[in-house]
């Protein structure tokens, strides 16, 4: 697919990198010739120096042939106009814009972004998406990852398998026999830095990260069996009082019985945060100062979340907080190179802002009717939800005859409001929603599974 990305900053770079690696023809526009130089040197993309909303620049970037525009410059207004021009002058059918200002996104103005008005199909707000990703981690403390699929009926969980886990060293197909009532399946395992979709006779080992799909109301039972049920945090410390930190703190304020403390190094920003937050104490000071962390209550906090815009600060603050006695540390990290530090430093969860944004975009790039998609932290695997359409090779035969390749695990299937855990004999019907775990290399094969035949009208 031919795609134009406006903006070569951190978000634009991440998107361009991912799209180019999936064989899309990407052209990046930015006013900065330095950023364009850098991105065209490092990635297999074309670059155009210019203003992302100007018609001649878009023309030069190949908007006439483009099937998608992703406008992620720092200016909401440039992004919106770029989408408008792409639609009005170049018939670009899929338009995605980054909109940061909450003002545009208020429910009262929800008519703004549609075909007749401002033709933007998908609005992305990376800060809010990261904030939500953090909140999800806090909501299910027994899991290091938690996602919702199948119209809310299916949960995807990542759990660390401990020594005392009752199903350690038990073949997965036997786990199903042991708990016949439990609608859950282990769809992926991370072991020795490798992620794979397991076979039925594979076993979970202590130290594995297990990825599960589970019927939503069986979640706590599944956590009981595979991981551990942990009480929701009551004391939370947030390092970093910027947009994301304030968003998370504000969301937590609405939950009962929570005590939230925010630490922010910049005085002006700390004052802004304090003004916006009603029930949260904001401390001005360095998140890397152990005395200040102690003052904020890191020692007896169930969770410390580091959300500054500096990866190094986030990683160190998380490690320090754990050393002070915090039970859990959740850490925002942009650079994937730091993922190697997660286990050595005892940090429980890394949140990769790029994974969230890129996932949203890839959902609209992938072939087939894909209704949900999320990269796992390091991008080595993904979980996605797609609808089985008439004439797709999946439909109408038992899964074992559907040529599902290694590295792909069809976990849950939602049919008419009921969750099924698919086994080899399961027959997919038209309209089923499938929640699938796929290793990175198998993404093209997943696309083929959902692809319709010529006869599809």
């Amino acid at each position: 697919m031919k795609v134009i990305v406006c903006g070569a900053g951190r978000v634009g770079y991440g998107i361009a990198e991912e799209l180019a690696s999936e064989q899309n023809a990407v052209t990046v526009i930015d006013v900065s010739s330095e950023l364009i130089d850098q991105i065209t040197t490092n990635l297999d993309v074309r670059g155009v120096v210019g203003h992302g909303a100007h018609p001649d620049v878009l023309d030069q970037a190949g908007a006439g042939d483009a099937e998608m525009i992703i406008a992620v410059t720092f200016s909401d207004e440039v992004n919106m106009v770029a989408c408008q021009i792409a639609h009005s002058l170049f018939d670009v059918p899929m338009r995605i814009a980054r909109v940061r200002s909450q003002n545009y996104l208020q429910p009262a103005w929800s008519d703004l972004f549609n075909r007749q008005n401002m033709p933007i199909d998908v609005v992305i707000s990376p800060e809010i998406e990261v904030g939500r990703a953090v909140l999800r981690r806090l909501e299910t403390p027994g899991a290091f990852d938690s996602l919702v699929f199948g119209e809310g009926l299916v949960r995807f969980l990542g759990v660390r398998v401990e020594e005392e886990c009752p199903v350690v060293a038990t073949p997965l197909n036997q786990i199903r026999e042991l708990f016949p009532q439990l609608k859950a399946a282990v769809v992926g395992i991370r072991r020795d830095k490798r992620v794979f979709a397991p076979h039925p006779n594979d076993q979970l080992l202590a130290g594995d990260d297990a990825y599960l799909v589970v019927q939503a109301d069986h979640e706590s039972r599944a956590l009981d069996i595979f991981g551990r049920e942990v009480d929701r945090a009551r004391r939370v410390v947030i390092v970093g009082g910027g947009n994301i930190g304030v968003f998370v703190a504000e969301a937590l304020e609405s939950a009962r019985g929570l005590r939230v403390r925010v630490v922010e190094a910049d005085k002006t920003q700390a004052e802004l945060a304090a003004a916006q937050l009603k029930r949260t104490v904001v401390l001005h000071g360095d998140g890397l100062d152990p005395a200040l962390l102690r003052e904020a209550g890191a020692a007896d906090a169930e969770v410390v979340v580091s959300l500054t815009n500096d990866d190094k600060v986030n990683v160190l603050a998380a490690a320090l907080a754990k050393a002070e006695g915090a039970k859990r540390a959740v850490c925002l990290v942009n650079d994937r190179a730091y993922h190697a530090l997660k286990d050595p430093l005892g940090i429980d969860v890394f949140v990769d802002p790029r994974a969230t944004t890129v996932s949203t975009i890839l959902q609209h790039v992938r072939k087939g009717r894909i209704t949900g998609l999320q990269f796992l932290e390091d991008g080595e695997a993904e979980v996605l939800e797609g609808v089985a359409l008439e004439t797709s090779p999946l439909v109408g035969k038992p899964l074992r005859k559907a040529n599902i390749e290694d590295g792909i695990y069809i976990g849950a299937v939602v049919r008419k409001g009921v969750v099924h855990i698919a086994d080899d004999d399961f027959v997919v019907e038209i309209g089923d929603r499938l929640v699938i775990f796929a290793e990175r290399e198998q993404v093209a094969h997943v696309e083929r599974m959902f692809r319709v035949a010529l006869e599809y009208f």
Partner: protein
Amino acid sequence: MNDATRTSEKDAAQSNGFDGLLLDQGVIIDLNATSKKHLFQELARHACEEIDAAPSVVLGALLERERLGTTGVGSGVAIPHVAVAGLDRVRGLFARLGQPIEFDAPDEKPVDLVFMLLAPEDINSGRLKTLARTARALRRPEFREQLREAPSADAIRALLGGDAVTAGG
């Protein structure tokens, strides 16, 4: 096909049976498109001069259909097809491209022969039968060759069994 059915070029043409299906301006030759999207823009614009639909809607539908699975069938042929509200029967538009374009076809060959079908939303309109018939006709190598070598739009129309066969055509 045996010799008896090929008694004359006209008979052969009629055996393809696309009479009444093609739009009045339903054959375009030497169409220059730089991409799938550009091609669909051109096809939608042409078609919407004769049918009551908005080009942008037809374009959107064609691209969306393509995302679910390619309509390239191999050997340089594509049969893009979508339902269009308000149509009373299946209509067709044939285009021969000046330069073949990338189409994500199963044999990975670029496409230069495109037969677009626009169909009523009613599933009983015979649209699947028309699609199957179109695919079958274009699967014949000698027919594709004739279409590629035809000197004019009228000649292609005659091959497809349209009604615009002029003297000497």
